[in-house]
């Protein structure tokens, strides 16, 4: 079982690095969205500092949504999703592997690039680690919930708007706790409270979402 898990992850990573443009797209989108806020709100440092953490979290959420369209659509079109559904290993584990690979490929680059963007919002340097920590704790839940949404709409071809409508209400708790923790981090206070809630949400998503994703994939393949 574990071997199959690693196998799927290595295949996904191999595929992702072979097509690095898909890799870079969410990161560039993330940077552009973060750049829009100062342009829209003006350079007033006080305002930028206030909305910085929240803006970064909203941009991370939107970048994740962007990358979810192709998560299962490609496998659905070229038949590999059927082969996964008909494999000897339980489908839940294989799809969890795909979601973990999606998290590595999409979310880690976002987290890696946040220090650069905090400059744009003039956030204090010591707040950056706290911000990255909140993203690290919150994005697994985003990916897991996102994989359920992507599996539900795997059979549809232009479903990017639909995935956003399905997922945004569900990811609101993650956004609330994440942005709040990031805000505390930026102002130098301890982020323990919301961070634990965020971690709790990620663990809850880890336990429930793979089963929903497997069921959703079986429905899309029907």
């Amino acid at each position, binding site marked *: 079982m574990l071997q199959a898990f690693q196998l799927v992850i290595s295949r996904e990573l191999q595929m992702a690095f072979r097509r690095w443009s898909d890799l870079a797209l969410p990161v560039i989108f993330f940077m552009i969205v973060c750049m829009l806020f100062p342009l829209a709100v003006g350079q007033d440092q006080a305002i930028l500092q206030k909305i910085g953490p929240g803006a970064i979290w909203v941009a991370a959420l939107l970048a994740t949504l962007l990358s979810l369209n192709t998560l299962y659509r490609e496998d659905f079109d070229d038949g590999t999703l059927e082969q996964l559904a008909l494999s000897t290993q339980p489908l839940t584990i294989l799809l969890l592997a795909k979601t973990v690979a999606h998290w590595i490929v999409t979310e880690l680059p976002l987290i890696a690039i946040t220090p650069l963007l905090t400059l744009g919002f003039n956030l204090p340097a010591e707040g950056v680690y706290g911000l990255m920590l909140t993203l690290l704790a919150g994005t697994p839940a985003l990916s897991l919930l996102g994989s*359920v949404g992507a599996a539900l709409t795997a059979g549809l071809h232009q*479903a990017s708007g639909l995935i956003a*409508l*399905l997922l945004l*209400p569900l990811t609101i708790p993650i956004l609330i*706790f994440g942005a709040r923790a990031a805000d505390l981090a930026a102002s130098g206070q301890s982020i323990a409270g919301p961070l634990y809630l965020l971690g709790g949400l990620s663990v809850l998503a880890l336990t429930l979402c793979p089963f929903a994703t497997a*069921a959703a994939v079986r*429905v899309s393949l*029907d």
Partner: protein
Amino acid sequence: MWNWFHKLASPPHFYRIASAFEPWLLWLAIACMLTGAYGGLVLAPADHVQGDGFRIIYVHVPAAFLSMFSYALMAVASGIGLIWRMKLAFSVAAATAPVGAAFTFLALVTGAIWGQPMWGSYWEWDPRLTSELILLFLFLGYIFLRQALAETRQADRASGILALVGVVNLPIIHYSVEWWNSIHQGPSLIKLEAPSITTDMLWPLLAMIIGYQLLFLAILMTSVRTQVLQREQNARWITEQLGTENIHG
């Protein structure tokens, strides 16, 4: 007991029961709502804090209760449909969605209008109203997913999974919004607590809630019949059922 439940689950049987009960439910609902409204608007004394403005509660609270109830019903029906593969359960879930969305919209609008005399502005990001707004988006997500999937069986099962994921998330969303509100709480505003309810304020509210509930069931009976008709078009029982209805239809 089990065969009663099984009997009810067969579409032709349910169709006949629904069409028989629906008029009774409707008239009973209207009667309850009229008495409730009369009691609320005329008999109940004005509240010492909010004056007559509090009478909006008779319209807002039942709608808010129904919005939660309908989403829970939709999730339970979807769960039954997915686990026991009962087509009728999916019909109930599909029928509940638009009605639930209507009640949620109603709760939202009446809540916002009530906000004006209470807090001075239509939208104060009160945690309960924010949860209602998110619930409305959950309903819309369900309805749009169901529209997007052409095949009814796929639409049933996929939207069923979404409803279950949604119902698990609902308490979390509500808690996080409450928590968020307590963090960003401005100067302590008078909360939208139910005003100190005296009995002659309370019974109209109960009458209105029962009235709304009966109305919801009456509407549900009609829309479930539509869903059953759509799903069972080729079944033979449809022809004689519609045949008989036509005679005294």
